[in-house]
């Protein structure tokens, strides 16, 4: 399941969806990305997330599909927020249930690594000195090499 929304999400609700009526999956891995107070700017006060409506959903569904082809995972949820966010706000959720922990770990990290490179979202950070677009990082590109 892929969702792109301005609204916040609730980990407990998402965990419930991954596990209700699910007696086959012994492992659930979740990842949550949050707004930090430092990043490429010092003293970040918030950020705005722009995206490419339509392509974001398609890109995320494509990444979900690749993960499902590669590992025996049963339920997958990807939620990415857009719009204005403050420090400590939640940005992204990935949750996966699987019979086996190694698949759940690998697929969750795989989805985050591909999301960071292929899903059309852009962050603009606000600091006390003004705002600037976040630069893409080489280490995110390098993260794909392990897959």
């Amino acid at each position, binding site marked *: 399941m892929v969702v792109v929304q301005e609204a916040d999400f609730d980990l407990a609700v998402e965990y419930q969806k991954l596990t209700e009526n699910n007696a086959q999956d012994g492992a659930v891995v979740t990842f949550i990305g949050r707004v930090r107070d430092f990043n490429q700017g010092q003293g970040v006060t918030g950020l705005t997330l722009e995206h490419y409506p339509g392509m974001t959903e398609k890109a995320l569904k494509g990444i979900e599909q690749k993960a499902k082809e590669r590992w025996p995972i049963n339920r997958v949820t990807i939620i990415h927020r857009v719009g204005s966010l403050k420090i400590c706000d939640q940005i992204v959720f990935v949750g996966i249930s699987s019979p086996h922990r190694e698949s759940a770990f690998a697929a969750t990290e795989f989805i985050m690594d591909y999301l960071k490179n292929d899903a*059309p*979202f852009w962050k603009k950070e606000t600091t006390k000195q003004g705002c600037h*677009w976040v630069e893409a990082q080489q280490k995110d590109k390098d993260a794909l090499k392990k897959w």
Partner: protein
Amino acid sequence: MNIQVKFFAQLKEKLGCGELTLSFPSESVTVSEVKSALSSKGSVWQKSLADGHVLMAVNHDLVVESFSVEDGDEVAFFPPVTGG
């Protein structure tokens, strides 16, 4: 043929343009030819689109410069993504 072209993030700000329509006399062009047509709009366009980091998508899929674009397609140019 006509295509819709979109720009996002830094690129949209630099060009001062989020969306435009382009017409070509031929029935299909490559993404590279779309870039050339856009570059002729001025030095900011030329310089911004020459940046090797600019990503390209056709109908919501990432593509390379040799990808073929047809009538009614949506082509997008944008900087490396920074979500997550």
